[in-house]
């Protein structure tokens, strides 16, 4: 799973030579064996390395504050999303929904690696949501639809159809 994400990320970044990944442990943590130095372990570590390699450092955030926010969300992905259980899914989505209420991207106004990694991470969750639930977490749905339409991001994941005409509006017309 993580390996497919990393190869999708490579395609998005336009890296010419795909790397060979291995995994370690039960959790299948991806490992990148670097020629020069020690192996890089962990989805976030490898992803950040790939971004720097492709010279797209702006994907990690342009200001100190946005860099910190990106790192925060990358960590969130690994600790909460991958480590969490089924019950946590609702809490996670609720948190994301509140956070995304006033932001277009996770880092505010700029598309970053955090958006990509969290898109990969939440895809399986969003696919399982019913239409009613997707309308409950409207901001997440909006953000998700936006990211999956960005050119080059969605490689190995099927697109999720997001209903444009809302069924449950909670208002009477």
């Amino acid at each position, binding site marked *: 799973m993580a390996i497919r994400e990393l190869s999708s990320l490579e395609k998005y970044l336009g890296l010419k030579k795909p790397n060979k990944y291995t995994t370690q442990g039960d959790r299948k943590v991806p490992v990148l064996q670097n020629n020069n130095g020690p192996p890089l372990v962990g989805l976030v570590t490898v992803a950040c390395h790939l971004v720097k390699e492709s010279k797209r450092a702006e994907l990690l955030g342009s200001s100190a504050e946005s860099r910190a926010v990106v790192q925060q969300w990358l960590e969130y992905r690994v600790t909460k999303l991958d480590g969490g259980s089924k019950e946590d899914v609702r809490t996670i989505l609720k948190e994301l929904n509140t956070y995304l*209420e*006033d*932001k*277009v991207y996770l880092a*505010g*106004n700029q598309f970053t690696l955090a958006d990509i990694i969290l898109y990969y991470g939440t895809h399986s969750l969003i696919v399982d949501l019913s239409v009613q639930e997707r309308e409950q977490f*409207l901001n997440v*749905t*909006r*953000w998700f*639809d*936006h990211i999956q*339409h*960005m050119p080059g991001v969605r490689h190995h994941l099927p697109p999720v159809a*997001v209903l*444009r*005409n*809302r069924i449950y509006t909670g208002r009477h017309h």
Partner: protein
Amino acid sequence: MGFGDLRSSSGLKVLNEFLTERSYVEGFVPSQADVAVFDALSAAPPADLCHALRWYNHIKSYSSQKSSFSPRLYHKFPNMQFSSSITSPNIRELRILFMLFQEDEEATRIKEERLAAYAAKKSKTAVIAKSSILLDKMEECVRSIVMDGLVWGQSKLVPVGYGIKKLQINCVVEDDKVGTDILEEQITAFEDLVQSVDVAAFNKI
């Protein structure tokens, strides 16, 4: 454009509703459509219209890069009620500039307003067209379009600015026989002279 009067709270509500599921006004990247709507707003939307506010702050953060947004694709927004109160000078200018750079020829624009008056037997349309040179030639071509149920009326030249004039021509159209789409198609068939066509006003008689 389709949001109603953006200076009123009802128009802002429509915009907010629209932006609930969308990050941008048109498509998935910022475009001139966003700039147009942004300029039409007199101030930031109130905090209770959270989606409009989110979009507003986002577009604001682009500040200087706004001029490099891609041009808008549609002239009207889907599923929205039509109202021309948003056509502020800014939007027209944006469109004109874009056309100038694209082609240095005459531009004709008829702006289409879809009213429920399509059920009318006879309707009178006033067509606004923009053009810069060889206006007589263009007028001739437009008048040469002959269709059953179509009668051309008087025409006049209206200066638009930047040295451009537009050809505004009236016609009486019987809705059953002639649709504005067909008319538009026939006019834009004169590709060399006509760049685009818009209906300016559409009255029932």
